[in-house]
């Protein structure tokens, strides 16, 4: 009867409500119906009869859906999708804002109140709530249309996924620390123009852009190092998501009109370099890389949870 036990456990995953007594009672009823039907249709209760009856009785999602009274706003098994999709949308949303900043605009979907640190931080929860609401609305419609619907959860990304060994985690920390050290030294003592004679304007811009990029890379690698350090003691994808989000905020600040001139002056950049398309292109590229990474990490984080509960 292991099969029946597993089946009932699966149904439990999809049952709404937090009242365990009620859920237990529903499962007991389902167990009784399955046994009754197995004996009736197959003559006796044995493993084969129960397995066949379960198949006829319906998938765990379908069986649980019969017990949704009045219909939940969002089907229980879709709740993990809620956070996954919100995470993806949030990352893309922030990414679009960041790209808008890179191109000198204030906000992509709606404008930020301001571009200073406080306005940026206060905008994060607003953006999150907006995205959460949007995804909730979509999942509400999905629930109403077909509560047992299965949505894509990108299992491709978590195939053969294992927790990295301690060696790999230490390697990642050393890698990010070395990277941070190299970028620090590079923007402190370089970059040098290796050709002889006077610098052309485009050469100055190229050097300045490279210097700005090194500064950003240093900041991102420092944030990454902290996350890698935490992962040595307690591995979690969540720390990677947090570090990517912090990286995004750091990029926001670095390209914000409020701080970009100060950073440029700290790095002794030529004023004509600050808004040059070359620098914009480099910042754009960095923004895209960190957004894509954040989206992938979010997918991996929630996909593993969805697979565990499905």
């Amino acid at each position, binding site marked *: 009867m292991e099969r029946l036990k597993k089946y009932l456990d699966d149904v439990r995953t999809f049952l709404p409500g937090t009242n365990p007594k009620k859920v237990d009672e529903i499962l*007991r*009823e389902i167990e*009784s*119906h399955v*046994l*009754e039907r197995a004996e*009736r249709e197959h003559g006796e209760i044995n493993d084969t009869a129960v397995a066949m009856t379960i198949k006829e009785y319906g998938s765990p999602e379908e069986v649980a859906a*019969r*017990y949704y*009274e009045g219909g939940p706003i969002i089907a229980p098994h879709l709740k993990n999708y809620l956070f996954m999709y919100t995470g993806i949308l949030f990352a893309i949303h922030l990414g679009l804002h960041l790209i808008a900043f890179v191109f000198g605009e204030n906000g992509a979907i709606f404008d930020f109140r301001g571009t200073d640190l406080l306005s940026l931080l206060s905008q994060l929860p607003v953006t999150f709530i907006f995205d959460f609401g949007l995804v909730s609305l979509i999942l509400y419609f999905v629930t109403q249309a077909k509560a047992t619907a299965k949505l894509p959860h990108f299992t491709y990304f978590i195939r053969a996924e294992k927790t990295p060994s301690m060696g790999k985690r230490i390697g990642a920390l050393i890698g990010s620390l070395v990277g941070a050290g190299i970028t620090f030294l590079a923007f402190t003592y370089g970059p040098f123009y290796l050709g002889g004679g006077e610098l052309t304007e485009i050469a100055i811009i190229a050097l300045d852009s490279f210097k700005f990029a090194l500064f950003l890379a240093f900041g991102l690698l420092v944030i990454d190092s902290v996350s890698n350090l935490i992962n040595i003691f307690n591995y979690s994808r969540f720390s990677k998501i947090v570090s990517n989000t912090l990286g995004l905020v750091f990029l926001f600040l670095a390209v914000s009109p409020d701080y970009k001139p100060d950073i440029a002056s700290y790095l002794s950049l030529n004023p004509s370099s600050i808004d040059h398309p070359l620098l914009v292109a480099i910042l754009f590229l960095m923004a895209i890389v960190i957004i894509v990474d954040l989206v992938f990490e979010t997918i991996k984080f929630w996909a593993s949870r969805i697979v565990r509960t499905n």
Partner: protein
Amino acid sequence: MDIGKLATEMNRGFIQLLVMVMLDEPMYGYDIVKTLGKRNFSIDENTLYPLLRRLEEREILSSEWRVEENKPRKYYFVSETGRQVRKELLRIWNEQEQLLKSFVGEE
């Protein structure tokens, strides 16, 4: 025209009342299906079982577990509240039937 959906909507209320009328004496789920089958009324078990549960949650039905032939069976019967609800619903049912007949008779 496919009347499936309309029939389902109409049946929903009817089956609730039918169950209330049937369960003066305790019966378990499949017992109800069999009894109705003998009277040429087929009911899907997947519809009936959650319906019994909902009526129990509304305290219209009461239940008790019994073990028979090594199987647990949940027996349902109409509660005191259920009897009052049933009386009221039957009154409405009768009025509606009369009303319908008064129109159908004119066709």
